[in-house]
C-alpha cells in the first residue's frame, strides 16, 4: 500500500485560535443538528402545536381574538414556552452527556482544542437550532395574526416578547447543558430538563410564593411569565414583582419585565458557567 503522497510541511499547519475553532465547530455541530432526525421530529411537533393553537383560536375566536394584544398574548404565551423547553431538551439534553455515552467525545478530544471550545460551540449550535424552532412558531403566530388582523397590525410588544423568549431559551439551554454535564448518560439530562421546566419549577414557584410567601425571584418559571405578560395592560415594567391575591386567596407575585430579564440572564450565566466548569473537570474514563 502506498503511503500518502501529500505531506504537509509543519509550517503550513497552524492550529486556529480558540475563537475561530468555536465558529468552525459551531458550523459543523449546527449542520449535524439540522440533518438529524430529532430536528425533523421537533419541526413536526412545533407545526402540530401551531396547528392545534390555530384551531383553538379559530374555534373560540369570539373570546380569543377580541383584540390583537390579547390574541398574541394568549397564542404566543401558550405555545412558546413549550417550544423552548422541547427545543432545549431535544438539542441540549444530550449535548455533553452524549459525547461520553456515544463516545463521540473521544473523536473530538483527541484534537488540539480546548474543552471550553467544544462546550461553547455545542451551546451556540443548540441555541441556533432552538431559535429556528422559536422563529418557526413565530411565523405560524404571525400568519394567524395577519389572517385575523391584517398584515400591518403587529404590536411592538411582539418584538419585546421575542427578545424575552430568546433570553428564556438561553436560560433553559444553560440549565440543560448543566444537567447534561452532570451525567454521562443522556437520558438523565433529557428527563431532568423536561421535568424541571415543564412542572418542577412551576410547582416550586407556587410553593415559594404560596407557602413561604416570598417573591420567587430565584425560580426561573417566575421570569418566564414576562414573555406573555408584555402583551397585557397590567404589565409590570419594573424590577420588583407585584403582589395580588390568587384564586384561593394565596399571595401571587408577577415578575416585572426588568426583573424577568435579570433572572433569565442570571440563570443563563450561572448554569452555563457551572456546566462548563463541570465539563472542564469531567474525565473520559
Amino acid at each position, binding site marked *: *500500500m*502506498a*503511503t*500518502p*503522497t*501529500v*505531506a*504537509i510541511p*509543519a509550517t*503550513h*499547519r*497552524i*492550529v*486556529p485560535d*480558540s475563537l475561530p*475553532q468555536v465558529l*468552525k*465547530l459551531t458550523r*459543523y455541530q449546527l449542520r*449535524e443538528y439540522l*440533518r*438529524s432526525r430529532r430536528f425533523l421530529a421537533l419541526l413536526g411537533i412545533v407545526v402540530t402545536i401551531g396547528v392545534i393553537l390555530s384551531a383553538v383560536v379559530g374555534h373560540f375566536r369570539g373570546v380569543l381574538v377580541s383584540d390583537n394584544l390579547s390574541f398574541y398574548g394568549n397564542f404566543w404565551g401558550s405555545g412558546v414556552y413549550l417550544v423552548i423547553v422541547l427545543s432545549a431538551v431535544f438539542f441540549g439534553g444530550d449535548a455533553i452527556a452524549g459525547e461520553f455515552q*456515544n*463516545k*463521540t*467525545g*473521544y*473523536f473530538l*478530544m*483527541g*484534537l*488540539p*482544542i*480546548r474543552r471550553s471550545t467544544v462546550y461553547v460551540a455545542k451551546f451556540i449550535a443548540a441555541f441556533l437550532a432552538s431559535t429556528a424552532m422559536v422563529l418557526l412558531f413565530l411565523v405560524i403566530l404571525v400568519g394567524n395574526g395577519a389572517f385575523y388582523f391584517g398584515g400591518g397590525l403587529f404590536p411592538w410588544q411582539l418584538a419585546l416578547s421575542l427578545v424575552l423568549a430568546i433570553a428564556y431559551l438561553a436560560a433553559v439551554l444553560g440549565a440543560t447543558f448543566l444537567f447534561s454535564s452532570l451525567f454521562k448518560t443522556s437520558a438523565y439530562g433529557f428527563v431532568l430538563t423536561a421535568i424541571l421546566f415543564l412542572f418542577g419549577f412551576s410547582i416550586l414557584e407556587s410553593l415559594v410564593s404560596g407557602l413561604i410567601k416570598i417573591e420567587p425571584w430565584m425560580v426561573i418559571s417566575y421570569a418566564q411569565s414576562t414573555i406573555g405578560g408584555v402583551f397585557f395592560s397590567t404589565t409590570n415594567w419594573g424590577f420588583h414583582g407585584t403582589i395580588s391575591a390568587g384564586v384561593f386567596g394565596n399571595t401571587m407575585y408577577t415578575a416585572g419585565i426588568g426583573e424577568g430579564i435579570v433572572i433569565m440572564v442570571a440563570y443563563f450565566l450561572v448554569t452555563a458557567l457551572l456546566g462548563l466548569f463541570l465539563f472542564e*473537570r469531567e*474525565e*473520559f*474514563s
Partner: protein
Amino acid sequence: MASGSIRIAGLTKRFGSFVALDHLNLTLEGSKCVGFLGPNGAGKTTALKLLTDMIFPTEGECEINGISVQKERKRALADAGVLIESPEIYPSMTPNEALEMVADLRGVPASERKDRIQAVLAEVKMADWGNQKVGRFSKGMKQRINIAAALVHDPQVVILDEPSTGLDPRGMAEVRTIVRDLKKSDRLIFMSSHILSEVTEICDEVALIDHGKLLFYDTLNNVTARVSEGHGSVDVVFARPLPPEVASGQIRTLTGVTGILALSPDRLRIGFDGGRAIQEKLLESLVGMHLGVVSLTESESALEEVYLSRISRGD
C-alpha cells in the same frame, strides 16, 4: 519531517484507592514504532488517556514534542494524531465531512485539505467510501476512518490505543497493515496492544506494563536476545476447562515452570526453564495429573516468553 518525542514522567493515576498507573516513566524519541504491551487492566489505556489529556493525572506529567500535555493541551496535541478507545464519529457525517472537520480544526490549509483527505482515505483503503454515511459502516470501517482522522494532518507523533481490538480477523490484519505502512513515514508511533503477535509483527521497540508499572522498555531485538537457551514455553490444550486453582496451584509448582498464562479456559501457555529435559518431565507430569491433556506444542515467540515470565512473576 522531523520525528517526534513523548516523555512520561512520574505519571500516576488513582481511581479512589485503586492505583491504575504507578509512577510511570518513559521517554520515546525518533522515528519508530513502540508497542505498549500489557494484559487487560495493566494501565495501558489509562496512560494513553493521560498522555492525551482525556483524564487528569494524580501525579506527574507528560509531554509531546517537549510540550506539557497537562499545561498546554492544545499546543501539545497540535502535532499528534490520536486514536483512543475506538471513538464514534457523528453517524450522519460522511468520512469526507468528518475528515474535513478534523483538518479544519487542526489548521490544515483549505487549499491542501481535499488532497490530504483523499490521500489518507486511500491509505486506509476507504477511498471509495468517502461520501457514504459513517453510521452505516462496520466497526472495522469506522476504525479505519478513525485512523485516517489521526493522520489527516500528517503528524509527527501517532498514538494508537489497541487499534485492532474488537475487529474480526480480516479487520485486524488490515489495521496492522495500515500501521505497518505508517512506519514508512518519519513518525514516532506509540501503540498499545495486548496482542503479542501484533507487537512482534509491527513494532521496533516494546514497553511492557502490568499493574500500572513499567516492567521493561527495550528493542524487540534485545528482548529476543535476552531469551537465552534453555528457556521455553509450551501451549497445552485440555479436553475440558481447567479449574483456575489447578493452573495456579498444581501446575505452577511443577519443576522448572516459570509462569502460566491462561489462553482460554481449556488452554494454557506454560513457561519453563531447563530445556528439553524439563519439557519432557513437564509433559509426563501433566499427563500423570489426569487433567485431560490432548495436545502440547511449543510456542516460539521470544516476546511471548518474556511477557509470560514477567507478567506471571508480577515484577
